[in-house]
């Protein structure tokens, strides 16, 4: 039996359609280090039955197309001596490049009309390996001039473009700094969920179509990009199975687990907490709002109040040059403030923990 390695993904590099500096607004395919890449193409198909004289399926109701990609990419660190933090094309770079394609620039929320669209990203940072999981959506049109993804072999240049020619290492707990709503001590793991709302719309065909098609239609004339300046009169996409996808609001939530330390002060005889717990023997519940706000160590957002002085919403990757830090929150989003919306305390004989949820918000000041 001959050897056959063609089954194995390890020999392949996946290029994903994103946008790097120098690309046009419609982007191009770039290689990234991928852990898992799942493609799901669905065409709604249901059998329809009528008074038809026969029980067998004669009519199929064929609906719209949906195309979803679930991508997992690790967070890696370049090898020692390589000070270009962006050398390794890991999940952080993929996230930034996808959003470069989706939006017209940093702090710009005007979307480009290019596919794919990122509908969610989850950044998982733990004391073991860390990764980013994306959900991308496209319209499912098989004739897009530039595919969302492609496979290339592991040649010297491709591996170099991937950033693995010098090796790399897995990002660990000592590569991250966190500060969510003031919660930054004894954090064991944190997930940053970015959700972008989208809506799919299909329209009836406009009469007369500008182009006549003899088969499955082209994706308009601009590779899946509808230019409102020049395509106003064209019926590109309307009347076919491939939906228009609209981009809506952006939500960011950090959830995680932290360990609680409670110290018995033998001098005062009271329990004092670190990491936002103060179980006091004398005051298990605060009698009024002022006492609650004034309570020491309780700097997480308290129910019934909006403490606008808690502004932090940051997670950083330590730069290999050891002099700076890189925010993992994409530059396209300007979330720097958060409030703690949920805290669940778990007390047992084992380690005492604290599950938290912090919602981000954006202000201009």
């Amino acid at each position, binding site marked *: 039996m001959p050897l056959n*390695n063609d089954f*194995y*993904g*390890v*020999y*392949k*590099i*996946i290029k994903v359609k994103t946008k790097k500096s120098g690309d046009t607004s419609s982007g191009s395919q770039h290689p990234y*280090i*991928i*852990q898992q*890449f799942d493609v799901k193409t669905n065409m709604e198909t249901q059998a329809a039955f009528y008074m038809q004289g026969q029980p067998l399926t004669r009519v199929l109701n064929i609906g719209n197309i949906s195309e979803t990609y679930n991508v997992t990419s*690790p967070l*890696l*660190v370049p090898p*020692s001596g390589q000070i270009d933090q962006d050398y390794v094309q890991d999940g952080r770079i993929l996230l930034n490049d996808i959003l470069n394609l989706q939006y017209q620039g940093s702090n710009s929320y005007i979307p480009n009309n290019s596919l794919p669209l990122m509908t969610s990203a989850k950044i998982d*940072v733990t*004391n073991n*390996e860390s990764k980013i999981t994306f959900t991308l959506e496209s319209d499912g049109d098989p004739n897009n001039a530039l595919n969302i993804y492609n496979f*290339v*072999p*592991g*040649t010297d240049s*491709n*591996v170099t473009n*991937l950033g*693995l020619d010098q*090796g*790399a*290492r*897995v990002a*660990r*707990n*000592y*590569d*991250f*700094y*966190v*500060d969510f709503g003031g919660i*930054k*001590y*004894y*954090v*064991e*793991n*944190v997930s940053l969920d970015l959700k972008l709302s989208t809506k799919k719309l299909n329209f009836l065909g406009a009469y007369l179509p500008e182009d006549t098609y003899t088969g499955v239609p082209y994706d308009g004339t601009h590779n899946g990009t509808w230019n409102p300046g020049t395509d106003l009169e064209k019926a590109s996409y309307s009347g076919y199975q491939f939906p228009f996808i609209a981009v809506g609001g952006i939500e960011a939530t950090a959830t995680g687990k932290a*360990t609680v330390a409670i110290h018995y002060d033998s001098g005062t005889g009271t329990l004092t907490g670190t990491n936002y717990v103060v179980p006091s023997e004398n005051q298990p519940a605060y009698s009024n709002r002022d006492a609650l706000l004034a309570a020491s160590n309780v700097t997480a957002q308290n129910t019934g109040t909006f403490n606008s002085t808690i502004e*932090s919403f*940051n997670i*950083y990757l*330590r730069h*290999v040059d*050891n002099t700076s830090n890189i925010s993992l929150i994409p530059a396209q989003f300007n979330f720097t403030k958060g409030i703690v919306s949920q805290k669940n305390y778990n007390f047992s*004989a*084992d*380690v005492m923990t604290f599950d938290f949820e912090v919602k981000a918000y954006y202000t201009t000041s």
Partner: protein
Amino acid sequence: MFTHLNRSIALTGVLSPPIIVNGNGYLKTSSYSVQVNQEINIDHLYLQGGPGKAVADFRNKNIQGNMSFFPRINEFNSLENSVIDLINAGQYYTSKVSLTTLLLPYNPGITAEGDPFTISSSEINSLIFDTCIVKKITIKAKENEEVKIDCEIIGQVDEPNISPISIPNDEHEIYRKLTWLDCFFSRNGSQMENLYDVEISIIKEMDQRIFLFPVGSASNDSVYNTGVKSVSVNFKYVERITSVFDLFSYSFGGFADYINFSGKFGPISFNLPNVTYKISSQNLTPDIIERTTEGFFKISPITPDNQNFVFTFN
């Protein structure tokens, strides 16, 4: 092709410096493996263009290992200070010891971002593991053998030493090892004459948590938090059965209050006034019938707060 024959002297353990406990006491060990422990592997694979394992994983580092030694006494029946320190660290859950080996260094930097081989004096001087917890200590004595102490150590380095260390003066006393003949064991006030193998262990359940770093701090790949979750004292002894009347010392398991299981390993004494016994194990064979009995020191949650709650020294 030439074959060289030349004389060389390799460093054997006999010639190497002994372990220094708490900076001021030598410990002559029969085996020692406490050193830096860090898992480094290349297990991760991705869609990466080839089968070569290109991504390394540098996990967190701690101090870990075992040591064994034979406690010794001088002419005044005194143990070495290092042995007393280790036994006390074994029984008191907030005690730690420092261990200096003079041969095993410690790298205070992030392993993945430093050279594996260094001429940095600060790293060569880092020979002190300053925060070592005795996770388990077992004192065992057996007929016709020396008394032996085994320790399991787990810890971290909080303050890497960057200066040359001072070596304590060598002792000029002569010691002898403790043997079975230095031991004595009793229960309920009566000598346990049929006993020939005894072990007492103090076991700590340990935990070393790994956290992400807070904004504004300096990060490090070492563990920086070691905690003790529980403390228990276990014992085991083996007796020879000499008569049918030995049935009365067969354990059915259960609580035995005021039983005062006590003994001496030379100047090391212990007394377990209340114990929880397991059921004895006794195999009937054509040879001498032996019975193994195990149990636990019956304590309250705050008993380990007492520094010498198991071992005392005469």
